[in-house]
């Protein structure tokens, strides 16, 4: 998809005025947070497991070249094929080529953020291949022509009335008078429609939550079982995964899986966790005849050598956005590309450039909840701060902001001058604001006061109050 992250401010304004969206976001604020808290409380070792999961990924990244080679060896040994794609365009070409060679008319897809990242569907559809998303949430946004608004709940921005309308518009061969007001009815209808697609598909494409060097296995987790029907019924199974998904062993995979579902949906474990290794074996009555893994880099190998390496630990659980006050207010689409929320604010500028997505790291209150809940302990606020610095260095931010920061820095570096001038400023503001107690408008701060009122200062600075209090104590 074409990023709109550069238009972040406009996106935000639209999101805040979208009543449907605001209603749907109400579900995020409570559901995910409570469920994760319960799952964490039920497993006393949870935080220790997070430390270990972080260490596993750090170890894997530090030996990434060797584990990828070992993984490739094992996939090949089990009869599968590994394809390397340095860029999104290469990955699209490789997958299109595999689909064409399989004579594919219909392709089913399990949910994959990497497929979103490389805009795979558009590319295949342009060649006349029917691409069907099978995860219910992904299917909903596919028929609406939208992109996911959340990493694990792609349709979290929708309400069921909207879904009912979309189903009536899309599934026109079903009776018009059918009842669709209950979620069960909507799920059933999707099940019936998609069942035929599963059976008709020539190629199934899934992502991978993990790749295992020990055995050459790819791992997916789903609750619906759609990923499994996608990969066991068609003749060809294609996995699209990025280089940083690798872990050494099954044991390492289990430690990460122990924190994944609990952080994401608050489940003890996802309903289906599937390990796939190569194509079907000679005696197997079912499974794909071909197994391909497309390993995509798309800038990650370079990130590995920068201060953003820690982002590569991300396991895409979505906990950071579930706990983010900014995401709660604006939803995922406002972020303008594939990855929303705090992880998106760090990943997007790193992948598509600070010039195109420089606003995203500014959309943070630095409250620190994202880092506090991240199962891989990624220091998201620290990394956002680094991106802000980078944006400033590259002069990508507007001149008013740059000038403002420079003026502030001038005073901040001269404490005595800073104190004296704030004393004066605060005394003036206190006098003017005494009657109302707040300011509805302030010169040079119109953007801020447009949405909120500034409480008037009481007349003295913190330093003054502190000094007075200390003096009182000394005299007592």
């Amino acid at each position, binding site marked *: 998809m074409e990023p709109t992250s550069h238009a972040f401010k406009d996106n935000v304004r639209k999101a805040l005025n979208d009543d449907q969206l605001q209603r749907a976001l109400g579900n995020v604020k409570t559901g995910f947070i409570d469920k994760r808290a319960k799952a964490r409380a039920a497993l006393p070792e949870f935080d220790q497991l997070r430390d270990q999961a972080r260490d596993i990924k750090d170890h894997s990244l530090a030996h990434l070249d060797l584990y990828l080679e070992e993984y490739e060896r094992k996939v090949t040994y089990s009869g599968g094929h590994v394809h390397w794609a340095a860029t999104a365009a290469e990955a699209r070409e490789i997958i299109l080529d595999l689909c064409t060679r399989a004579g594919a008319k219909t392709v089913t897809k399990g949910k994959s953020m990497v497929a979103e990242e490389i805009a795979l569907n558009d590319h295949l559809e342009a060649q006349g291949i029917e691409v069907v998303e099978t995860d219910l949430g992904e299917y909903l946004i596919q028929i609406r022509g939208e992109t996911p608004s959340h990493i694990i709940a792609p349709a979290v921005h929708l309400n069921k009335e909207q879904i009912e309308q979309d189903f009536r518009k899309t599934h026109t061969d079903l009776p018009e008078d059918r009842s669709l007001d209950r979620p069960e009815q909507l799920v059933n209808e999707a099940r019936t429609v998609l069942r035929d697609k599963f059976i008709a598909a020539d190629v199934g494409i899934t992502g991978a939550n993990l790749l295992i060097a020990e055995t050459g296995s790819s791992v997916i987790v789903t609750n619906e079982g759609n990923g499994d029907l996608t990969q066991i019924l068609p003749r060809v199974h294609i996995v699209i995964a990025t280089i940083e998904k690798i872990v050494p062993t099954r044991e390492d995979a289990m430690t990460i899986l122990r924190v994944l579902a609990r952080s994401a949906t608050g489940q003890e474990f996802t309903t289906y966790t599937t390990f796939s290794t190569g194509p079907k074996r000679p005696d197997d009555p*079912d499974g794909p005849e071909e197994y391909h893994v497309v390993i995509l880099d798309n800038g990650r190998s370079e990130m590995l050598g920068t201060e953003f390496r820690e982002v590569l630990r991300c396991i895409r659980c979505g906990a950071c956005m579930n706990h983010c006050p900014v995401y709660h207010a604006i939803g995922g689409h406002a972020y303008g590309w594939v990855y929303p929320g705090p992880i998106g604010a760090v990943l997007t500028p790193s992948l598509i450039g600070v010039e195109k997505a420089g606003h995203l790291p500014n959309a943070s209150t630095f409250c620190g909840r994202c880092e506090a809940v991240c199962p891989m302990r990624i220091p998201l606020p620290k990394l956002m701060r680094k991106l802000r610095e980078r944006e400033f260095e590259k002069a990508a931010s507007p001149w008013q902001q740059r000038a403002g920061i420079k003026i502030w820095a001038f005073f901040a570096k001269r404490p005595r001058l800073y104190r004296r001038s704030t004393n004066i400023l605060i005394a003036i503001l206190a006098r003017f604001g005494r009657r109302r107690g707040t300011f509805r408008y302030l010169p040079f701060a119109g953007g801020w006061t447009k949405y909120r009122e500034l409480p008037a200062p009481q007349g003295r600075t913190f330093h003054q109050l502190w000094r007075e209090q200390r003096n009182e104590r000394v005299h007592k």
Partner: protein
Amino acid sequence: MTYTEDSRNKIMNTIRSSLGVSGDEAERITRTSIRLDQHKPNLIPERARKTQLENIALFRNMMESQSATVVELKGMDDVPGAVAGYLRDNNLAAEIRMGSDPILTELTWSAALALETKIGKAVPQDSAALSRAFGAAAETGTLFLLSGVDNPTTLNFLPETHIVVLRKVDIAGSYEEVWEQLREVQGQRTMPRTVNLISGPSRTADIEQTIIMGAHGPRRMCILLVGTT
């Protein structure tokens, strides 16, 4: 592929320059091969380190909280009757699909009157399937099912009803114990085509975060827990 070899070199070179390594460092190679060979477990939660009796109870609890039905049976001979009974109680057709697992096929199915049994992988028309789990981890109520002619993977996903036979002796505390059992049977560093870790019937929460059962996989799941304790 035309550029996959070039891309592979490019990716590997960038990774190595980012890490400041050549890839030939003996110490790194030794470290990774030891890790792969030893495949040491990391922290195993305390709840997964209990007695066999506690494991069985925990497995049952977890499975039930994940919306599966658990039925305890004394011996394998009780399986056909329990399958017929479960289908009848849920008003389902008296037919069951299973693979070639001798532990299942050699049971006296004629004892379950009017129950039709079919052998082989699942087809879209099948309404119910029977599998045998290789093992299970009690810690989250998770079954391990292996692909192959004995228990084809399609049985786990296509039919609306999935019945799974699990012997109590095959229940472990942790996932890691089950992987170790699999290594004993199939060897180091190898896997069947598909290993399914299953914790209850299919579900979705994609519509307003309401959990609805039977998204794409089975709508209902029944575990036949076999053995005396």
